[in-house]
């Protein structure tokens, strides 16, 4: 048999050999496990970042300046980054818009976080994170970005922390001489994140800023928009804010036949509302079953003919642990709820967990 696989270049082969030799020195660990102790941000490591500073923006929002690892590939203004933070010892992943302008390789990035009531991660980031903390990162992603050539007339509609991706775009200084209107809604003037910076841009004539304060003006509506920016339908528009606002805008733009001009960014696209029982999908086996809130997922899977890993069946041996890709499960021993969205990396003991809503098991 002939093979057409190209021979690895001399350099790559040498690198491979060195890595194998290093691994034989450190086995069962990897050389990376030792390097992580001294150089967690090096090239080749899992992507991480170190918090350089935490700067308060408003009473309940703060900007985290982060030095990303060497393998950070940069971002396009408007994109977000997923951040893995250890809160009370448990790793939690959340997505935040990048608010810094793209920098040269190795430069710091920033995200701006608003603490939401009962928000486990947001409160931790805003109030309890100290410089020096290591966080886990993913590469930047998202298509809430400006086109290569900026449109002549632009409208940004933002509410609350929805201003963050837009700030990323404004700071990147890529709009050239475009005619830019920013309509921003926040409860009071003191709640406006980047308030001073936005007003500065307005004073310099870079943008026209329309500020709305819901405490006095009420929630921003489509009718308001007609009045505040009469030509809004003629503008390429980017909107980010609460779901209600985005739904109303999408309806309005679509009804007017301009749906293609509106770009929206929604955080938390998957809303997990736990209940009792639900449809359980074993993703790789391609099996979906309805399980009630009292049946362990292990039993539900086995009853449906899925070959499940199992052990003691009483919650002590961890032989049945599988990844919960998304959904909600309840611990049958104490009723504790666990929820996951894709990327959270949550693993559960199927022998003592029951469905608390639809869930996908990676098995």
């Amino acid at each position, binding site marked *: 048999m002939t093979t057409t696989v190209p021979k690895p270049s001399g350099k790559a082969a040498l690198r491979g050999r060195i890595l194998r030799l290093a691994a*034989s020195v450190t086995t069962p*660990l990897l050389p990376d496990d030792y390097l992580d102790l001294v150089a967690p941000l090096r090239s080749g490591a899992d992507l991480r970042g170190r918090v350089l500073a935490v700067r308060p923006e408003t009473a309940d929002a703060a900007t985290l300046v982060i030095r990303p690892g060497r393998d950070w590939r940069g971002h396009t203004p408007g994109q977000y980054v997923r951040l893995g933070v*250890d809160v009370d010892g448990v*790793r939690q992943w959340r997505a935040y818009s990048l608010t810094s302008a793209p920098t040269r390789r190795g430069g710091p990035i920033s995200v701006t976080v608003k603490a939401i009531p009962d928000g486990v991660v947001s409160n931790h980031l805003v109030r309890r994170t100290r410089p020096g903390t290591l966080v886990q990162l993913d590469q930047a992603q998202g298509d809430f970005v400006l086109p290569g050539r900026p449109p002549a007339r632009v409208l940004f509609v933002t509410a609350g922390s929805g201003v963050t991706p837009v700030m990323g775009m404004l700071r990147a200084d890529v709009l050239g001489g475009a005619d830019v209107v920013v309509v921003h809604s926040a409860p009071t003037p003191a709640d406006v994140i980047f308030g001073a910076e936005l007003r500065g841009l307005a004073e310099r004539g870079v943008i026209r800023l329309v500020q709305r304060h819901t405490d006095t003006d009420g929630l921003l509506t489509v009718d308001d928009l007609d009045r505040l920016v009469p030509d809004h339908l003629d503008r390429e528009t980017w909107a980010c804010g609460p779901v209600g606002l985005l739904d109303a805008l999408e309806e309005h733009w679509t009804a007017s036949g301009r749906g293609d001009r509106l770009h929206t960014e929604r955080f938390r696209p998957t809303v997990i509302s736990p209940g009792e029982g639900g449809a359980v999908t074993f993703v790789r086996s391609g099996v979906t079953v309805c399980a009630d809130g009292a049946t362990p997922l292990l039993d539900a899977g086995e009853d449906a003919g899925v070959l499940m890993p199992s*052990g003691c069946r009483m919650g002590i041996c*961890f032989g049945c642990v599988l990844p919960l890709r998304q959904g909600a499960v309840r611990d049958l021993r104490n009723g504790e709820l666990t929820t996951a969205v894709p990327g959270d*990396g949550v*693993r559960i003991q199927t022998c003592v967990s029951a469905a608390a809503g639809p869930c996908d098991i990676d098995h």
Partner: protein
Amino acid sequence: MTVIQNKPVNPIAHLTAEDIEIIGKELDAIRERVVADRGERDAAYIRRVISTQRKLEMGSRVVLLFSLFPPAWIVGTAGLTVAKILENMEVGHNVLHGQWDWMRDPKIHSTTWEWDHVSPAEQWKHSHNELHHTYTNVLGKDNDLGYGIMRVDEDQRWHPFHLGQPLWNFINACFFEYGIAAYDLELGRNLRNGRHKRPEFRARARAVGRKIRRQVLKDYVVHPLLSGPSFLHTLAATFTANLLRNLWSHSVIMCGHFPEGVETFSRRSIEGETRGEWYLRQMLGSANISGSRLMHIMTGNLSFQIEHHLFPDLPSNRYQEIAPEVRALFDRYGLKYTTGSLPRQVLSAWRKVVRLSLPNRKAPRRVDERPAPALAASGV
């Protein structure tokens, strides 16, 4: 020890079925309290132990590059021994139990961890977490009772092979990690009944072979070679570190279930076992070791074997904290909390190994045929 049902005085005869369920509820409550409270402090603890272990191992191995010089040999060997003990006991054993899974850190997780041991984590998790921890001290079910090469209970049948068990135990202690690998493979049983030809067994045996090759290559070839002129000295140093680690972990683990005062159970007794009865079996089937904080860490907190067997998935640093409460529960219900210093418990276990190498002096005494009330009611 003899099977609890065969004792002249049944240690749980005074408990009603209801008592046993209440004990179970109280233990559940202790567990819930720890689960609700575990957090940043615990995460910081295990990360500190892991980082200390890695730095110590790396540092010791660097020192051993110059093991030709006696002080370097001594310091390096001592450091490597401690590092290997920490790695197996406080880190490996406990991570593989899933004690730290709640942190959701993929690098410190029972499904991804591999340890400095010739038995692959996957196989050890099955024989230890699943079999030993579920069927603790049930004769014929829990192979940890004598590891299949020794008789550690009067109710295990004597065979002339057992005459040599003090020697078998000593050899097992010296090469303990290989003993465990063979044990996890159920090598003896599989060879006897011809199952060693099955593809499933062969695949597992190959996995062990690969693990042994990597371990041996690292300890006895790569590091000695890196030491250049110190080749032989480094070889001796790693051999010594492995030997001391094996002797230490064997001693600690013998203290968990073999000393006098620990109970065993018959296979029939666990049919239809309730949660409370399972807890009770763990309480009576394990023994602790008393000592300093450093000693507890070096045993991987298996010195709190009772607490560990009650709650195998709670973070190890918590066992010491809940021990007084657990002990109070034993006292309240008139149960024996078996504990003693390391030398005392090791001696006790060894004495039993020697004593039971001979057949029982007299036929095991039977309890009055009428079963004790609690046992009749609960089926323990």
